[in-house]
């Protein structure tokens, strides 16, 4: 074997050995970075205090997710939740459950990483839901997807709260033009309270759907 080949092989062997030595630390670094990415949103969740109040009682709530058979319509699902008597806390519990407890991933209307940072209820029945920016960035783009996202919130609030009449959606405390490029978030959305009247109706076809998501007024 020529001497040059021997030197090359020896060099390669040294390099391979060095690579083997450094590989575990490299792997640790990569995994650490991945973990850091993943936990960024989880860390934000941790900042948000757990939503439980002394007045919590176990109740059956109607939550609206995508229909498993018809993915362009919403369907109510009865879910047992600990719900507060306080309307603000109750709304927060409901929307958080909407994010965290879809029956399946295909029925999800809101991004899994979205966080409801705060929910405020004004004395005139105006609810203000303040979400993390992941609602904006992770909601699939499209009129249908965005409409389903907002409609699921509006209908869930309407089905389980009697004193929320309209909803405003903010992203990290800021007014936002659109949800993910299509749906207008500059105004309010009508909420039709049904909690005291009757249980939520069964799935309604798109064409028959009442206008739940429509800004009342562009100017607040």
């Amino acid at each position: 074997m020529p001497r040059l080949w021997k030197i090359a092989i020896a060099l390669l062997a040294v390099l391979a050995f060095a690579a083997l030595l450094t590989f575990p630390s490299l792997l640790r670094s990569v995994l650490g970075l991945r973990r850091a990415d993943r936990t960024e949103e989880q860390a934000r969740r941790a900042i948000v205090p757990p939503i439980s109040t002394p007045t919590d009682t176990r109740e059956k709530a109607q939550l609206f997710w995508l229909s498993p058979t018809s993915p362009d319509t919403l369907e109510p699902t009865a879910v047992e939740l600990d719900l507060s008597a306080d309307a603000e806390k109750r709304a927060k519990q409901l929307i958080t459950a909407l994010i965290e407890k879809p029956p399946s991933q295909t029925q999800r209307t809101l991004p899994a990483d979205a966080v409801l940072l705060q929910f405020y209820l004004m004395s005139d029945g105006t609810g203000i839901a303040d979400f993390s920016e992941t609602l904006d960035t992770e909601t699939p783009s499209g009129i249908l997807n965005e409409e389903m996202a907002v409609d699921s919130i509006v209908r869930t609030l309407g089905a389980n709260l009697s004193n929320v009449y309209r909803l405003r959606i903010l992203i990290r405390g800021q007014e936002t033009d659109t949800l993910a490029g299509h749906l207008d978030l500059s105004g309010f959305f009508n909420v039709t309270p049904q909690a005291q009247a009757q249980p939520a109706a069964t799935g309604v076809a798109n064409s028959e759907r009442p206008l739940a998501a429509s800004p009342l007024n562009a100017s607040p």
Partner: protein
Amino acid sequence: MRPKISLFLPGFRRKKEFSKSEAYGVRHLGAIRHALYLPEKRHIVRNIQVSGKTSGLIAAALSLNPRSGILKVMWRPRSLVIWGLAGMAFLSLPVRSQQSERIQGKQISQLQVPSGAQPQQNTSPPTNIPQIPQSPPTEEPPMVTVVLDPAHGGADFGARGPTGLAESDVVLDFARAARIALEAQRLRVLLTREGNQDPTFDARSAMINGLANAIFISLHVSSSGPVGTVRTYYYLFSSNVTPTVNSAAGALPQTAPPQTLGAQLTHTGLIQWDEAQRSSVDSSRQLAFLIQTVLVQRFKGSPDAPIAAPVRQLRTIKAPAIAIELSSIDVTDAKRLDQMAQPLAEAIGRAVAEFHPPSASTTTPSGAH
């Protein structure tokens, strides 16, 4: 500002930018893109984005390797002559009788659409958009202008498919197909973007708000939903319902709805920009019903009726305005979407032919403010 060319290549999330040393000013990117248009590689060719001001009559020579998808940018002064001749030949070709109108529309869009890709954040009415010169009144009824709006564009791809298919590209194809169908009916057609630009919501609205007797059709593709179905949307403002609620302290007094700026401006004959669609809600609904009725015959499984939803783009348009969204970009074979282009174009053409927009007197471009 240094001119640069950015490429969005399949498989790369980040754009590749070429500096001035590699790329020289391109004044007529649309012509170059058209010349380079290769159907089988369109996703590569169309994703060229140019930003920055260019100076002088310098043209760039772009050479595309169809196999690797690598686009080389070279400095070739002689290409100026080639592109100039090609452009002149292209513009003078008697393709259709409406060619001159299309060129006029292109000029208008180039005037109004910002050259750089900008995020759609600007909600204030644009102030630097020149007014479109109005044709002098004639005795003949004014020609209907259809403004087709391929949504998104530029850095905003819209929905993305599993194979990297971008909504912004698909809707541009749909708009081009619809333009042919509409021009065959001797209608004047404008596109809010001819290439990979990303005009703001307000810039797109400004294109039509300066026109009389026009209708606006925004084209979209959803991220998900039953493939092969189509939905038509129109904007519906709900009444100014003032919420009242019985609090623990007792019933609150019902506050009167606040008088909006829009209501105040109505007295002066002006229309508030942010709610310009209010004046055309009924005609938009009528147009949406017509189109959805035709679409449901061609795309089985679509809803029978249009949907009222607050689609942002429609709110600032002072004319009949609808959005059409096809499902969905979530296909592995792009042909499934391509196959929808022609039926969609025909449906739009048929519905527009049946639609009678409000007379020009009611849509005189007084301008939204």
